């Protein structure tokens, strides 16, 4: 398996392969069911969950509707607090900015906090091409990096791996990256976590440059927020001399008070905890505490295009909790890799085609990677109507044409003509009834035959309803 998503097949093909993998399906089913039950308990503790959800939605919608204003305010606040703000229109520009900043420090290695934005832009690969080693320090990201694998879940990128597989990866790969795994490492999660602690500690202590994303950026104060569990985030945000944060422009919130909503809804939706173990907040730089230099790279990379779509823009409310993945029947069976993007699951099915466009086969197939059951909408802590956006994107994909859609259009056009002309319809119905003995059980031909592979055609009545009505009721 390669470490990149480039050239991925369309969702149906990738999903078809994934559902054949029994271990993967068992790992996913176990993990998603565990977390969805816990989440329900954590959410039920708050009697005002619906109000918090509505407030989160409103805060994000308001911010997006004045995004230019809040970005400029954020820039002023961060700058006033001693930080430097950079603007990156796309992934290439963001990668170049970060690589240049790292090079300017004279360092050739960086420690990284788990960050969706830096995965989205392929930062690690870009840094590697510049001779800079980027060490992932989140346990799951470490498992993915050591295993030369791809992330398959927003919160738990190695969710497709079970403990035995993780032990094997640590045993065989850790030594090439630094401190080897302890002898006699077993597959107990506690021992595996200890192995990661020992492996990464030397990297944290000597690190001069840290790279992160952020969960929230507060415009009025210039404060950045990172929520995490393990303490690797704190290590990367605190010990290095230089900190570079790459953050999507939609992560800004207007006020300090706004955090009171998301700090209640995010942990409960994400890890099903009342609060995640560690949350770090920093505003620019502070003398004698943490990095002396702070750079914020504001990333567009398709977000403004998404903002331009009045239906689709609600995807920018996403706070990356991953609750929608854990309840999705399609994700549970297909796994995260089939989505061909760092954003898998229902949110990925609406975010990826908007950030990247629907020109590639996999991106055009993503809006169809759903049964439209709506479980994702129900659990979303910022009330993104994912089914609504999926249907909207399907319309766009259909409008841009393509093989299947051209046939569909011809068929619909023909049907429209028949239905608009009652005489034609009546003749057609009589012909159909008279020839019913000759009808096949399956429709022949490409496309249509697939539909009847697992379905029978309905049986044709002996005469059309209109004829029966004429005979019996007039």
């Amino acid at each position: 398996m390669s470490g990149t998503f480039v050239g991925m097949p369309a969702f149906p093909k990738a999903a078809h392969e994934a559902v054949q993998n029994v271990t993967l399906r068992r790992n996913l089913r176990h993990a998603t069911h565990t977390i969805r039950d816990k989440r329900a308990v954590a959410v039920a503790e708050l009697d005002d969950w619906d109000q918090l959800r509505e407030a989160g939605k409103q805060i994000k919608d308001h911010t997006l509707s004045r995004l230019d204003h809040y970005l400029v305010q954020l820039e002023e606040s961060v700058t006033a607090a001693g930080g430097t703000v950079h603007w990156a229109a796309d992934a290439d520009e963001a990668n170049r900015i970060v690589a240049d900043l790292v090079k300017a420090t004279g360092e050739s290695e960086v420690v990284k906090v788990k960050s969706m934005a830096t995965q989205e832009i392929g930062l690690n690969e870009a840094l590697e091409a510049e001779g800079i080693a980027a060490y992932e320090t989140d346990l799951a990201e470490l498992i993915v990096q050591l295993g030369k694998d791809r992330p398959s879940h927003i919160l738990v990128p190695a969710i497709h791996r079970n403990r035995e597989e993780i032990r094997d990866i640590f045993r065989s790969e850790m030594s090439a990256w630094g401190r080897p795994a302890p002898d006699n490492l077993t597959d107990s999660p506690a021992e595996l976590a200890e192995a990661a602690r020992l492996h990464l500690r030397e990297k944290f202590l000597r690190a001069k440059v840290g790279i992160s994303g952020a969960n929230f950026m507060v415009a009025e104060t210039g404060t950045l927020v990172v929520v995490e569990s393990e303490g690797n985030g704190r290590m990367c945000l605190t010990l290095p001399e230089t900190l570079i944060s790459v953050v999507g422009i939609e992560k800004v919130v207007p006020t300090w008070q706004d955090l009171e909503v998301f700090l209640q809804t995010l942990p409960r939706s994400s890890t099903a905890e009342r609060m995640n173990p560690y949350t770090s907040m920093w505003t620019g730089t502070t003398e004698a505490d943490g990095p002396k230099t702070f750079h914020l790279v504001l990333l567009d990379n398709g977000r403004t295009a998404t903002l331009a779509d009045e239906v689709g823009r609600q995807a920018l409310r996403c706070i990356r909790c991953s609750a929608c993945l854990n309840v999705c029947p399609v994700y549970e069976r297909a796994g995260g890799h089939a989505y061909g993007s760092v954003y898998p699951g229902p949110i990925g099915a609406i975010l990826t085609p908007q950030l990247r466009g629907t020109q590639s086969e996999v991106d055009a197939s993503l809006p169809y990677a759903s049964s439209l059951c709506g479980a994702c909408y129900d659990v979303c802590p910022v009330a993104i109507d994912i089914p609504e956006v999926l249907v909207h994107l399907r319309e766009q994909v259909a409008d841009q044409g393509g093989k299947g859609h051209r046939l569909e259009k011809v068929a619909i056009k023909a049907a429209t003509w028949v239905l608009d002309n009652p005489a034609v319809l009546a003749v057609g119905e009589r012909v159909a009834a008279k020839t019913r003995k000759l009808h096949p059980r399956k429709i022949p031909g490409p496309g249509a035959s697939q539909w009847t592979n697992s379905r029978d055609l309905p049986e044709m009545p002996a005469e059309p309803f209109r004829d029966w009505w004429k005979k019996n009721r007039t």
Partner: protein
Amino acid sequence: MTSSTTSSSRAQILARVRTALADGPAAPLPSRDYFASHTPDDPAAILDLLHENLADYRAIVHRTAESELPTVIARLLEQHDAASVAVPAGLPAAWLSGAKIQQRHDVTAGLEGDGVSSLAPSGSDRPAGEPLTPYELDTTDAVVTGCAVAIAETGTIVLDAGPGQGRRALTLVPDIHICVVRAADQVVASVPQSLPHLDPTRPQTWISGPSATSDIELDRVEGVHGPRTLHVVLVTDE
């Protein structure tokens, strides 16, 4: 400041945003009809809830009177066989008066203390006036701090680098963290009640139980990179 290399991208992104919004109306401000707190306004009940929720996430919780605090801290350090303890600037000297172990004072010139001398007291093996390096912190067994505020509903303690709390690295690298919470004036019920007590310009660490991970089969394991043992000492009036 904005770097000059990205000034054209800045203009481009802001222009794209404005085009995307096409002068549409601002969406309304949030209605905020959620609760300010989910807990009855009873200090004893709020303290009990804090205790319960801290313990639920595997913090080890103690209650003591102020006068007994030095004894409790000394006992905890002894219990873990700690040989050294990091001491943040501004920590009341009395808190460690019962401990017979090496004190490593972290002097952080940029942060105001509460008048505690920056001279390391006897027992320190390092020169005064220097912050502890990451490597020194890595060989320090424990750290004792106060906090800025504690949140009952989530079982959270918040440190904001104020006096007696230290810079962020201090409570991160040593493996044992003992945090003292004054029940009388540092405990609030809820997240919405906590934010007005906190100054966003100060670096903050919100801590809810010891370091943990759920990355292996979504099973929670305590103890990854931060302190694996978290003691919270609730100081009550009697």
